[in-house]
């Protein structure tokens, strides 16, 4: 639906500050824009741009050390500085929100029926019975199957996508004028993302509320929003219709964001490159629910008979949604968990290697994780983090040698060598991922398993990390297994793609073949969801 010209929410000179031990941080620096009735407005920016804090400030949801100044008028009524009791009449009724984390945004201790009913009872009154009836209608509306049964479910009994649907039901309960969706699909699998966005759009057509979509994902913006506000470092860089922003952006930052989509392709490996790592019929079982008095262990098969052959200089992209077994496959290939199957590294059969025998090979086979925040010890300096592997694998080196290697490794990943005397928390997400890559590279490995190495990073940073990985690969003839749910990244780095679902290979082939002529329905759905939301 195209918005009318009526401004339903007007933001003027809005500032959000946080007082921290290091002084005041200006998260939002006096911004202004309007939200028109019934329109879809995207607020776009990278992490730290202040896009979420703007909305949190208006809704009175800032952390304790945060404060908001300026003006935000809902239908002429000033929201900034409104007493909480007055603000409570607006939020949850006229302006509602859904959040990024569907797993934690609902109270785990109450049924979803009760949680959706709470704002109905509070804002509209009426009996519990009437509220329950309304909840059933809403669950039906947001596409929860079998609402009469599901209404008494607890959040942990629902999937991520279903929980986000429950949040949407809650948001719609009081027929709001504005629905603020803060990264509503970021934590969801791509096929689920598409479903949620479609649902939001159809509900908007039906009820005519304005939607404010806060996101870092320009792919979604292009297909979903009518107008776009681009934010950077607490300021509005540019605003306009979606067409204007994408076709003729005026600011260089916007242009950079649009171009940040990973692009380019990897050079193919040598024609008859030998196999460096092979796993045949890789099968991994996990035991669940085994207790002293319970009946027999249950087995969950995470990876089911997957065969993978990685050639020297090649990148195999392993694609799948959460629970597909792709990360487990990566760990099994490195022999980091008990698994069945036959494994070879180079010419060596490593199927029966024990931990001690594997240790000598670990130097050759490295692993980089998704979360650059959690995978670096906060109590070690960067230098200690990246040279730790040398202590084990090259014990002959002295301190000066190790330091030289650290300098070389940091330079190689594009960081200032001075970084080695600092601590991980002093670095941004992208820099930390470079540190994690340096930690792997310092050992001069031949195979690197990259487990979602770009998923926690902003788009513009993703592109840089992909470029870096491609350069390192070319320089050292490395072989990668690149595990990711993000198809555009996989496309930019892989020679060969394996699509996994429920522990099995659904489809595999050369990257071009997979992306241009996918055969399996599941692959088509994944590609469709990722590239044309």
């Amino acid at each position: 639906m195209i918005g009318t010209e009526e401004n339903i929410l007007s933001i003027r000179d809005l500032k959000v500050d946080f007082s921290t031990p290091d002084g005041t941080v200006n998260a939002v620096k006096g911004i202004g824009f309007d939200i028109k009735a019934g329109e879809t407005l995207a607020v776009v920016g990278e992490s730290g741009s202040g896009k979420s804090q703007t909305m949190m400030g208006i809704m009175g949801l800032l952390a304790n050390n945060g404060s908001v100044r300026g003006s935000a008028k809902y239908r002429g009524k000033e929201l900034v500085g409104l007493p909480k009791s007055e603000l409570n009449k607006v939020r949850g009724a006229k302006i509602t929100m859904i959040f990024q984390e569907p797993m934690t945004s609902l109270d785990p201790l109450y049924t979803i029926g009760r949680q959706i009913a709470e704002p109905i009872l509070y804002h509209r009154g009426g009996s519990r019975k009437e509220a329950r009836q309304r909840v059933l209608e809403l669950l039906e509306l947001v596409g929860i199957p079998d609402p009469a049964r599901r209404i008494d479910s607890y959040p942990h009994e629902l999937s991520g996508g279903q929980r986000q649907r429950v949040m949407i039901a809650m948001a719609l309960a009081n027929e709001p004028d504005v629905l603020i969706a803060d990264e509503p699909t970021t934590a969801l699998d791509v096929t689920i993302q598409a479903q949620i966005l479609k649902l939001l759009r159809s509900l908007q057509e039906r009820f005519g509320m304005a939607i404010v979509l806060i996101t870092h994902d320009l792919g979604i913006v292009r297909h979903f929003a009518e107008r776009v506000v681009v934010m950077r470092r607490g300021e509005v860089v540019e605003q306009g219709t979606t067409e204007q922003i994408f076709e003729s952006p005026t600011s260089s930052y916007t242009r950079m964001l649009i171009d940040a989509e990973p692009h380019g392709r990897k050079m193919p490996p040598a024609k008859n490159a030998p196999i460096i790592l092979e796993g045949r019929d890789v099968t991994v079982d996990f035991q669940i629910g085994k207790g002293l008095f319970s009946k027999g262990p249950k087995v969950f098969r995470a990876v089911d008979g997957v065969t993978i052959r990685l050639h020297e200089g090649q990148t195999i992209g392993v694609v799948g949604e959460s629970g597909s077994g792709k990360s487990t496959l990566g760990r099994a290939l490195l022999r980091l968990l008990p698994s069945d199957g036959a494994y070879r590294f180079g010419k060596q059969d490593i199927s029966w290697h024990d931990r001690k025998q594997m240790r000598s090979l670990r130097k050759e086979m490295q692993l980089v994780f998704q979360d650059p925040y959690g995978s670096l010890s906060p109590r070690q300096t960067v230098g200690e983090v990246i040279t730790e592997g040398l202590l084990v694998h090259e014990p002959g080196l002295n301190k000066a040698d190790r330091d030289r290697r650290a300098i070389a490794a940091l330079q190689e990943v594009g960081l200032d060598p001075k970084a080695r005397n600092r601590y991980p928390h002093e670095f941004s997400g992208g820099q930390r991922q470079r540190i994690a890559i340096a930690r792997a590279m310092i050992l001069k490995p031949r195979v690197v398993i990259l487990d979602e190495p770009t998923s926690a990073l902003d788009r513009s940073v993703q592109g840089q990390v992909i470029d870096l990985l491609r350069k390192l690969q070319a320089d050292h003839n490395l072989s990668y297994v690149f595990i990711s749910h993000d198809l555009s990244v996989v496309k930019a780095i892989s020679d060969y793609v394996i699509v996994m679902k429920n522990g099995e290979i659904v489809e595999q082939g050369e990257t071009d073949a997979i992306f241009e002529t996918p055969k399996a329905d599941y692959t088509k759905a994944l590609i469709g969801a990722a590239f044309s939301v």
Partner: protein
Amino acid sequence: MLAFVLRRLASAVPTLFIVVTISFFLMRFAPGGPFNLERPLPPATMENIMRTYQLDQPLWRQYVTYISNAVQGDFGPSYIYKDNTVAELIGKGLPYSMELGLYALLLALIGGVTLGTIAALRQNSVLDFSIMSLATVGTTIPNFVVGPVLTLIFAIVLSLLPAGGWGDGSFSYLLLPMIALALPQLAVFARLTRGSMIEALHADHIRTARAYGLPPRIVVITHAMRGALLPVVSYLAPCAAALMTGSAVVETIFTIPGIGRYFVLGALNRDYTLVMGTVVLIAIFVIVFNLVVDLIYGLLDPRVRHD
């Protein structure tokens, strides 16, 4: 649910057995014995006594005898309180200790949770700081100091309350020992509640509740408090067991005829049977309260419901 309770009670049997076995042998391997007095008894008398109490038998036979008697509810005679069996001693004292312990537990729980919640809601304020300082004082000052100080102030200087004894069991007799007993636990509950409440208030679903305009009462009590109580509830089991099986210090200071002193006196005098009886009692309390706590946990948190 019933199956869960039965299963847990069944698994209590081996637990009790292990506790009894370990403490039986620990006691016996401790130097000295129940009848080694400062002035040694004549050998003939000693021999006589040893035979009477079957202490002249090989250790394994004593153990087998003890276990088979204990299974039938016979915990043997006490060696120092010569005219009483262990079961009689505990049966006489336990009601006093349990009543006092129950009141102390309620005071500690209600007081601690209330203070902890207030401190969490006013985090880093003067109020928070004062409550937490008091909590530190509560934990650090031992109750053999708190007890006499309370007596001095309320019984002797102000003459408001009796200084000790059980009297007619009225509340005025219970008040001071109850406070002395509850204070350290109250401090623990306050700390636990404050910590988990602060964490709970930062949860994403609390932000959701606020975003939907729910009044603070519902946000705090319905949504934050229920989750925040889980760690508090876990501490309830060991705390209840400790309070309700009596405290040697508090019961001695306030001359309460409970069972608190038996464990200490029994251990010091090598009164094997009395110590064993108390150990079994405490173990049963711990097992039962842990079971109760697990059931409460299931009520509070649907994710750990027992079926």
